[in-house]
């Protein structure tokens, strides 16, 4: 069984704390993505799981067995490296077979058979006698995967395996990896700094920053109910709009605008005064300019479009306040692709009250998250 348990895992390199008191349970057959910016400790965590680094303190359990002192070979894991780490002097066949040769219980013929079987699964059977430098990036990637799955491990560990591929191939391999993981039903821990990969592939995402776990939740929850400012900013493309401001009575006063807060929002703010208001770009509604300010609702704003980025299916609008046109974009909004707006247009922007997030300006903790249609059943990570 491939369930993984990390308890109070800490890794220090000299004075630097790479991973700080990380506790995480990963279910059998789960696809967990560890995501975060460079240097957040995600790779170190993976390497500790693999047995390539020894934890300073804390425990690692795989399938219920204590792993801290086991060599990688005895952990029933396989790892895919960022640069593939294919052995350049060996053919694809030898590369895939190498890991199998230390595995007991195979005859030589069975090993050969297994290599061919794995190669066929990955569609590289015709490349078996080539050397790695004769392969394209995508093919090398497949060989690296082949080397991992040939030993039929309980856990796959993947360290940014797709980062060396071009965008189109990456999207293809993403799907393929997911299918493969489904098919093989192997617990997978996948490290990436790419939030798109995290969102699209994960059963659950574990967001890390500065060695600390920020949130573990499904992609949906990470996106719509971030635990804190960091998660809200990290997940989502284009990035969530964040406006700093203070509360005066039941109104949020930001630099460019003020925004009345609903009752249910007020319930959760307690007596805090400094906030960051967040709203996802696609939640902002953009309409034609109102004839005058009187026609504006409380939640409406008049804004100028400074930049339009057409993506085909959607347009990303950079909006600035009419009074401070030269200032940085006040907001970004995403509209449908067919909704044509040109640069310089004045528009009415509505921020729907049920779509806003409020974060404590000091701690970054989420005070209020947007409402859902159906209540999701999840438990928030204890802070």
């Amino acid at each position, binding site marked *: 069984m491939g369930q993984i348990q990390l308890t109070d895992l800490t890794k220090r390199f000299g004075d630097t704390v790479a991973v700080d008191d990380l506790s995480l349970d990963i279910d059998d057959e789960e696809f967990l993505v560890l995501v975060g910016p460079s240097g957040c400790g995600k790779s170190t965590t993976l390497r500790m799981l*693999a*047995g*390539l680094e020894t934890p300073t303190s804390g425990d690692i359990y795989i399938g219920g067995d204590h792993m801290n002192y086991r060599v990688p*070979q005895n952990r029933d894991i396989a*790892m895919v490296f960022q640069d593939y*780490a294919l*052995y350049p002097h060996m053919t694809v066949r030898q590369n895939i077979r*190498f890991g199998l040769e*230390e595995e007991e219980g195979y005859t030589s013929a069975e090993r050969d058979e297994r290599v061919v079987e794995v190669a066929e699964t990955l569609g590289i059977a015709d490349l078996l006698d080539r050397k790695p430098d004769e392969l394209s990036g995508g093919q090398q990637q497949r060989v690296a995967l082949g*080397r991992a799955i040939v030993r039929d491990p309980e856990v796959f560990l993947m360290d940014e395996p797709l980062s060396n591929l071009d965008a189109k191939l990456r999207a293809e391999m993403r799907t393929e990896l997911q299918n493969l993981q489904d098919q093989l039903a192997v617990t997978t821990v996948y490290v990436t700094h790419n939030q798109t990969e995290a969102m699209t592939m994960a059963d659950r995402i574990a967001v890390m920053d500065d060695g600390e776990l920020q949130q573990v939740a499904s992609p949906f929850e990470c996106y719509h109910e971030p635990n804190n400012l960091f998660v809200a900013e990290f997940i989502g493309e284009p990035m969530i709009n964040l406006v700093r401001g203070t509360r005066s009575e039941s109104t949020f006063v930001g630099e460019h605008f003020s925004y009345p807060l609903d009752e249910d929002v007020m319930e959760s703010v307690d007596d805090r005064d400094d906030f960051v208001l967040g709203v996802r770009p696609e939640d902002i509604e953009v309409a034609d300019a109102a004839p005058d300010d009187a026609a504006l609702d409380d939640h409406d704003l008049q804004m100028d479009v400074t930049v339009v980025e057409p993506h085909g299916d959607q347009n990303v609008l950079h909006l600035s306040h009419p009074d401070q046109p030269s200032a940085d974009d006040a907001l970004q909004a995403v509209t449908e692709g067919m909704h044509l707006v040109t640069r310089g247009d004045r528009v009415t922007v509505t921020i729907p009250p049920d779509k806003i997030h409020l974060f404590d300006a000091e701690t970054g903790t989420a005070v209020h998250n947007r409402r859902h249609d159906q209540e999701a059943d999840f438990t928030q990570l204890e802070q």
Partner: protein
Amino acid sequence: MATHDNTEHVSDATDEAVGWESKLRYFLNSDFVRSAPYWGIPFVLMSIAVYGGTGYNFAISFTDYEGLGTPDYSTLDLEMYAQALSSDAFIAAAQNNLVLLVGFTTICLVLGLFLAILLDHGIRFSEKFQTVYLLPMSLSFVVTAQLWLWMFNVESGILNLVVTTLGFNPVDWLGNPSIALGAVILALIWQFSGYTMVVYLAGLQSIPDDQFEAARVDGASITRTYLRIIVPQLKEASVSAAVVLMVFALKAFTFLYALVGRYRPPNGTDILATLMVRRAFKFGEWAYSAAIATMLLIMALGVIGPYLYYQYKQGGL
């Protein structure tokens, strides 16, 4: 028709317009000519000194030139080559040369690789260790020879001090013909294993860490990782180090000469280079020595040739 004639006439005129004067001017202005002073002078010097000397040596080897006087080019034959190949001294020297070539090169490579792996495997202060091993390389042959001459000394040498302390009889390192060559090889290895170590260390450090890690995750032991994954990737380093060592082995004359300070090296260590110099400058057998020199050159080419071909195949030339 008239137009046709005209065009021909015009083209003739253009041909004439680009006459020899313009062609000369173009030629003189070409990169080839204008850069000639820079590459031409060294080229001429090289040609005279190296290739001219080689050619002259080659020519002499076909004559019977001996003693004082000038070579006589009227009768050219391969007599000297035949004479050399049938001489016991030549055969013995060639054998010694071969032993030196193979023994010295192999042990140097193996020892260098071993040291490089140890250093690469993370012995601390490896920078200092590198210097320790590389230092002998910076010494001249004369210094090495003198140093080892002291150490090889029968009565007071440190080697015999060790041997007698262990309860054995003192060994005449350089005087015993069956040991002398081994002793010489030992000294040369001392000097050159640092070089092979540095070459291997560079090779090892260019192998990314994830190769080691992948092998670890694959469950390979350290020995197996090195044998199957790492050492095979050092092929290029081995080839280039081996070529340098073999060429040094062929021209180990300096070391042997410095060891004894005369043309006659210790018994059992005579190699082609020493034989050649002795024959030429002690006995004045110029033609005979030239023949040996030519064969030595062919042997050196035999070492370098495959290497150049290998480089060429790899696209390095």
